[in-house]
């Protein structure tokens, strides 16, 4: 961003202090911006420390350290439940090894009492044995502070930050402050490389860099010395040798080398304490580590180094007079320091936040409490910590829980992806490590590091060489020689939506048309679409010159598609959106939400069944009312019957086929009820599905009532008059437990409509030309999404045309139109597809049209004209609305046509 952002308060520094202040301020109606120079929060002192919640006996009474430590310790007890911060109240022991040390314990006890630390006591040697069996036998006594605890400092920092963001604060990462803007002795904002941010109040929580930040405002009152502390961390498999945090008696410089548990069950030892020059010096040293080891062995003499998994160093921000420096700048108005926060800063952070808030109030910042402050935080269940049922539940919520990415710590893909997209997202490898523990275990990321990096690249849509370890320039990988790998969306010449008969044929058609990369997207678990449940035969007479079953017809196409390596198939994937510039947004179990781009798109989504609601059958709403197709899937693919005494409403082919199927499966089909005076199914199905089994067909009848509480108990059937109005005195009852609806199919065009594709109000499918090109350039349609077919063979033919045309479009080879003629449905015609013909130079060949009659006619004339000129005239012995009529027009007759094409069906005179 290059502009200027305006806010009330800028907080510099995303450590535990800065984030705690942001959270505290987010209780009020304020605009808050927290700036962190690193790509993640918790990158300085907060990142590498002992993770101890001190009881509060160390600091001299009256110091800020003393009061804020005790207050902070108290506040964490509330924060634990409020924010779900990972902490454990394990208590601490300061161990005396000699009588000199014993005297120190007495001093600490006294100081603790002054500071208001509860429940302190000096524990004698014999009791120490049972409390900490591995403790050195040289220990003679210890100061027991049961109110001390341990916390994950990352978790605390992120919890504060997330709570702040949830309550409206803004966290900006990678924002290093290079200038503090001052006018008339007061701050007015800061400069970053991304632009200026205006604010009248600036909080300096920059940790070891607090002195430099103060200096930007011409304020030299803050002087910070970085003091390094080194640590060793042990594997969780080490039988944790201590229950509580063990301190030696303190020295002037530090509290000494500690032995303690972490909240995750590791053991850590450290830190030593050495002043360093650079605020960025986080190196460990051989001498430092041996100092840590020998220091730890004074308390735990038998500690073995075999289980050390890592070593690290942290920097304390030590101020001149050793106490925290919290207060207004003596030089510039509006600048507040929260600096010099060394131990017990982690413990004190929430209390520091309270103090800083009061300082801001006194400095004139209006603090109006929010009525809608949300104290809580969204919890993230960890897969590792769940019982088997809990794990199943997590998997049900998010299938990415089924994939373990970090074996050592049992971290799932869902946990990692969740943190990449969290409120305070992790966009670095270490950010994910600290949040999820992926890479924290024995292999230290050797196994999961590359995998986590790939997930980051995938989720952020960037190449792998953009993935960083932790800091601004900490890129992990370099691209190889040769062509650059792109992270842009995958591109396909042709993307086919739907893997049923239309989609399969369109995919193959696209390949025949020259497409080099084709993608077929199917929402079901397998290819083949509705054919998989149409187990009867009668498919493929035109296409394969033999009668096949639905699954066999599908299998032939599936085999052809699978044999072509240039066709990619994705299953269990639903298309959510197609933009007019052909970006296809999908979501699937294997890929999640993602986008591909397409040179051309073929819509092949098929159709759905008209439902009870759509035809408004009154009555009860018991179990046992199904659409015929849904029942067909249940019977033929799952092996369950929808009922035992069945009535079918509607004489469409699926209803007739189901009447036979259910009869063969042992059910009794009481009848097929059809409101029209003629059947909507093929004659062959009337004969072989009804007559063969003596199933009555009630023409000019409908169902006027459905009865039943739990299951259907019966339906009332009535004859209808010529206007399809039921005649009351014709009613009769059929005792059934199931009603199947076979009352029509509707092209499934919600996606097409979203894309802006123009639809035909009669076919309910897109308006297309002979290439099956819709009104949106590059978007084609074929199969039942275009218009409902009765023969799959025609679906295949039409889809091949759509696929070939799509490939031509993608290669910029689709001929440009000189003119476009509408194809109009005239007398006796319900609809014609394609709805238009584009005239192009050298068309050649014929154009095939599919049409439906409006009413049944015998001995009629099909006539096609343009501007009074006859293009086609054909006598038809019969025309039925249920059977699609196919005719072809020679393109030579069209080349000079200028007027719309009219198609009509009239009875012979």
């Amino acid at each position, binding site marked *: 961003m290059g502009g200027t952002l305006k806010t009330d308060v800028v907080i510099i520094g995303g450590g535990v202090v800065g984030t705690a202040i942001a959270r505290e301020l987010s209780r009020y109606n304020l605009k808050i911006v927290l700036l962190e120079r690193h790509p993640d929060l918790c990158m300085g002192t907060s990142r590498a420390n002992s993770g101890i919640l001190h009881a509060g006996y160390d600091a001299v009474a009256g110091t800020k350290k003393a009061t804020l430590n005790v207050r902070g310790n108290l506040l964490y007890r509330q924060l634990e439940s409020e924010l779900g911060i990972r902490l454990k109240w394990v208590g601490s022991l300061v161990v005396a090894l000699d009588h000199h040390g014993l005297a120190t314990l007495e001093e600490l006890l006294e100081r603790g009492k002054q500071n208001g630390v509860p429940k302190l006591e000096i524990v004698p040697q014999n009791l120490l044995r049972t409390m900490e069996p591995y403790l050195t036998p040289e220990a003679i006594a210890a100061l027991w502070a049961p109110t001390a605890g341990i916390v994950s400092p990352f978790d605390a920092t992120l919890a504060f930050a997330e709570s702040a963001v949830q309550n409206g604060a803004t966290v900006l990462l990678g924002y290093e402050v290079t200038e503090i803007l001052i006018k008339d002795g007061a701050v007015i904002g800061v400069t970053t490389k991304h632009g200026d941010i205006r604010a009248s109040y600036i909080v300096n929580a920059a940790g070891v860099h607090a002195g430099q930040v103060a200096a930007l405002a011409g304020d030299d009152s803050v002087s910070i010395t970085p003091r390094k502390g080194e640590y060793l961390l042990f594997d969780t498999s080490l039988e944790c040798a201590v229950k509580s945090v063990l301190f030696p008696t303190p020295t002037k410089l530090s509290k000494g080398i500690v032995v303690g548990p972490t909240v995750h069950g590791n053991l850590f030892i450290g830190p030593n304490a050495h002043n360093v020059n650079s605020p960025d010096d986080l190196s460990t040293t051989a001498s430092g580590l041996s100092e840590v080891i020998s220091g730890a062995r004074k308390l735990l003499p038998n500690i073995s180094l075999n289980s050390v998994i890592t070593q690290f160093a942290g920097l304390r921000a030590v101020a001149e007079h050793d106490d925290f420096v919290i207060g207004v700048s003596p030089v510039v108005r509006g600048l507040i320091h929260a600096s010099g926060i060394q131990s017990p800063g982690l413990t004190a952070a929430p209390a520091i936040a309270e103090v800083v808030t009061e300082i801001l109030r006194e400095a004139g910042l209006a603090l109006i409490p929010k009525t809608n402050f949300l104290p809580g935080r969204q919890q993230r269940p960890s897969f590792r910590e769940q019982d088997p049922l809990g794990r199943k539940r997590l998997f049900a919520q998010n299938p990415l829980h089924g994939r373990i990415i970090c074996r050592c710590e049992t971290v799932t893909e869902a946990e990692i992806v969740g943190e990449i997209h969290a409120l305070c997202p992790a966009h670095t490898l270490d950010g994910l490590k600290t949040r999820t523990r992926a890479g924290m275990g024995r292999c230290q990321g050797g196994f999961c590091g590359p995998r986590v990096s790939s997930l980051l690249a995938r989720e952020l849509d960037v190449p792998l060489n953009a993935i960083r370890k932790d800091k601004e320039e900490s890129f992990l990988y370099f691209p190889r020689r040769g062509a650059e790998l792109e992270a842009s969306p995958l591109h396909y010449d042709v993307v086919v939506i739907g893997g049923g008969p239309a989609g399969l044929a369109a995919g193959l058609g696209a390949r025949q048309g020259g497409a080099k990369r084709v993608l077929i997207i199917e929402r079901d678990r*397998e290819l083949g679409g509705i054919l998989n449940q149409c187990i009867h035969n009668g498919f493929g007479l035109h296409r394969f010159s033999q009668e096949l079953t639905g699954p066999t017809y599908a299998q032939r196409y599936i085999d052809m598609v699978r044999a072509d390596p240039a066709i990619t198939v994705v299953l269990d994937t639903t298309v959510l959106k197609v933009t007019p510039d052909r970006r296809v947004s999908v979501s699937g179990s294997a890929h999640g939400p993602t986008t591909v781009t397409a040179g051309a798109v073929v819509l092949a989504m098929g159709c759905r069944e008209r439902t009870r609601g759509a035809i408004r059958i009154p009555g009860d709403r018991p179990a046992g009312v199904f659409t015929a197709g849904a029942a067909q899937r249940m019977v033929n*693919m*799952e092996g369950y019957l929808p009922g035992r005494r069945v009535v079918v409403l509607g004489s469409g082919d699926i209803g007739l086929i189901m009447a036979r199927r259910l*009869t063969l499966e042992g059910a009794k089909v009481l009848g097929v009820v059809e409101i029209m005076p003629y059947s909507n199914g093929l004659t062959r199905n009337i004969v072989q599905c009804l007559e063969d089994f003596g199933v009555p067909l009630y023409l000019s009848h409908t169902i006027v009532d459905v009865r039943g509480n739990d299951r259907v108990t019966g339906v009332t059937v009535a004859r209808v008059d010529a206007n399809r109005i039921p005649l009351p005195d014709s009613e009769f009852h059929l005792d059934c437990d199931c009603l199947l609806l076979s009352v029509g199919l509707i092209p499934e065009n919600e996606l097409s409509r979203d894309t802006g594709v123009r639809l035909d109000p009669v076919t309910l499918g897109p308006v297309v030309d002979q290439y099956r090109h819709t009104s949106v350039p590059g978007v084609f349609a074929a199969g039942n999404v275009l218009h409902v077919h009765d023969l799959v063979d025609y679906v295949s033919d039409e889809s091949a045309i759509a696929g070939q045309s799509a490939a031509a479009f993608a290669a910029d080879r689709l001929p440009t139109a000189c003119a476009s003629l509408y194809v109009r449905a005239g007398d006796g015609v319900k609809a014609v597809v394609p709805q238009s013909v584009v005239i192009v130079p050298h068309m050649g060949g014929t154009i095939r049209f599919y049409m439906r009659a409006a009413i049944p006619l015998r001995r009629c004339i099909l006539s096609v004209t343009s501007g009074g000129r006859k293009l086609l005239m054909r006598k038809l012995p019969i025309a039925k609305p249920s059977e699609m009529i196919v005719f072809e027009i020679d393109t030579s007759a069209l080349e000079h046509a200028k007027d719309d094409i009219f198609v009509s069906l009239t009875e012979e005179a």
Partner: protein
Amino acid sequence: MSVSRKLICIICPLGCVGDVSMRDGHVVQMHGYVCERGKNYAVAEATNPLRMLTTTVRVEGGTLPLLPVVSSAPLPKDSVAACVCMLADIVVSAPVREGEIVYPKVMGLNVDIIASRNLPARAL
């Protein structure tokens, strides 16, 4: 004494409804069919009606619980229901390939029952 039956021709969309008269299992007279194909259909349908059989059989260890099957040739209309009933008890093991015979010579007829699709085995 001849018996007359109404038979709808299913060969073309016209769907001629004709009358067929039978005596001793032979067609002796028919009318109502407008073409040769219709007449041939009527004779066949009256004397030896045949039907394709399609149903499902149980699958063990497959990606789906049922396998659709089809008869290798049409079989006598009257034996279809009994064959379907018998096949309800058949269990085949995945994987199965389309065209594979899952039950040979069903009910002693010269007709095999064959798989009408591939059905892969399930891994877990």
